[in-house]
């Protein structure tokens, strides 16, 4: 079974040379730490920066230089700043190659719910609806089940949707899955996790090939 760092590490392998990547808050943010150093990648943050670097050293924080999680950041050579309309021109115009974000629920046709729980305080969708509606390549990073032990991979989402038929790949603590016409295609098992464990933790349609390799670490 993977922990959050493990999920981030596995997703980092999906980041290819020449990709512009938008990382959501939570597990996705950790992905930046595990991207291979021999490939060229730039991180975009929807509040208006391309070419984000690591967090600043103490004492070097700049209130005018933050990411979409409102964290102080730095920039790398080749970075640029721009306004919000331009930022979403990048996103909506499909110039960002990969979007990695968290989810509360994903359905086996690729619908995603991650912004609202009826009856609870709703914080808002931020840029998530723009991101999922626009990107060709969306990877969801999440735990396979919620705190109550219920599957977050469903036949159809019960929560209000963020986007429809948009998720391509899901990396959880248990597995790597692809959204296909026939449902969740099980691509890889997390180390030490059996197909049966994945099957019982998945409520949506699950397609299990004859061979399901354990994911490489």
């Amino acid at each position, binding site marked *: 079974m993977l922990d959050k760092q493990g999920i981030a590490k596995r997703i980092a392998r999906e980041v290819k040379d020449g990709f512009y990547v938008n990382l959501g808050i939570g597990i996705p943010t950790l992905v930046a730490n595990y991207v291979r150093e021999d490939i060229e990648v730039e991180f975009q943050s929807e509040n*208006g920066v391309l070419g984000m670097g690591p967090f600043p050293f103490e004492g070097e924080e700049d209130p005018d230089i*933050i990411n979409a999680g409102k964290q102080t950041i730095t920039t790398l050579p080749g970075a640029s700043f721009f306004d919000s309309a331009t930022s979403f021109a990048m996103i909506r115009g499909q110039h960002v190659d990969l979007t990695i974000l968290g989810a509360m629920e994903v359905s086996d046709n690729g619908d995603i719910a991650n912004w609202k729980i009826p009856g609870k305080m709703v914080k808002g969708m931020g840029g998530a609806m*723009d991101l999922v509606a626009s990107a060709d390549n969306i990877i969801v990073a999440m735990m396979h089940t919620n705190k109550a032990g219920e599957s977050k991979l469903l036949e159809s989402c019960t929560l209000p949707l963020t986007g429809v038929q948009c998720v391509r790949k899901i990396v959880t603590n248990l597995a790597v899955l692809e959204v296909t016409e026939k449902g969740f295609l099980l691509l890889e098992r997390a180390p030490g996790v059996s197909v049966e464990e994945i099957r019982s933790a998945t409520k949506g349609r699950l397609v299990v090939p004859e061979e399901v390799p354990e994911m490489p670490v």
Partner: protein
Amino acid sequence: MIRKTVANAQEALEGIEDDMTLMLGGFGLCGIPENAIAELVRRNVTGLTCISNNAGVDDFGLGLLLQKRQIRKMISSYVGENDEFERQMLSGELEVELTPQGTLAEKCRAAQAGIPAFFTPAGFGTEVAEGKETREFEGKMYVMEKAYQADFAFVKAWKGDEAGNLIFRGTARNFNPCMCGAAQITVAEVEELVPAGALPPNEIHVPGIFVRRIFQGVNYEKRIEQRTVRSK
């Protein structure tokens, strides 16, 4: 050159009234019009509709207006990090319209640019699209969104000149440029106000034509919401 300078926030907010619709720049607490917000508090205008990506925190930014119950409705993409907001929202005192962030930016830009409506994929198939026209273009579904209409836009820039030209710094730019000229009256506050001609015409982010009034702000706090550092 058409002079846009006014003395201070007080003069810049002349004409503001209860129940108006305002646009306010900023992302979180970054690049917010601190002086205009302080003056809104001082004037105690109420019944406001605020178009702003976020709603500040409890004791800063738009949170200051929430504390005094000056806001009737918030139009935002993300409103976390604010207990008083949550209380007013759950009790029904505060109306909240949540809008995808890119749609919010583009609805401002559309108002600025004389585009009454446009199509975006954001929100198709979700609550956000309810009651809105949807349409297929090239095999993909889109939602029609309309330009905002607002009375005042309050923006914050780094440098500005007498002609209203603006230059922003870092990610403090965010929603500020798209809101310039998107309301009846755009008020810009700047950290440094310089004479016309002091800003290179090639480096101006927002031409002065989009700004009606400009003033040099005071006492910028520029609070950091999530101070995150690495060790040396």
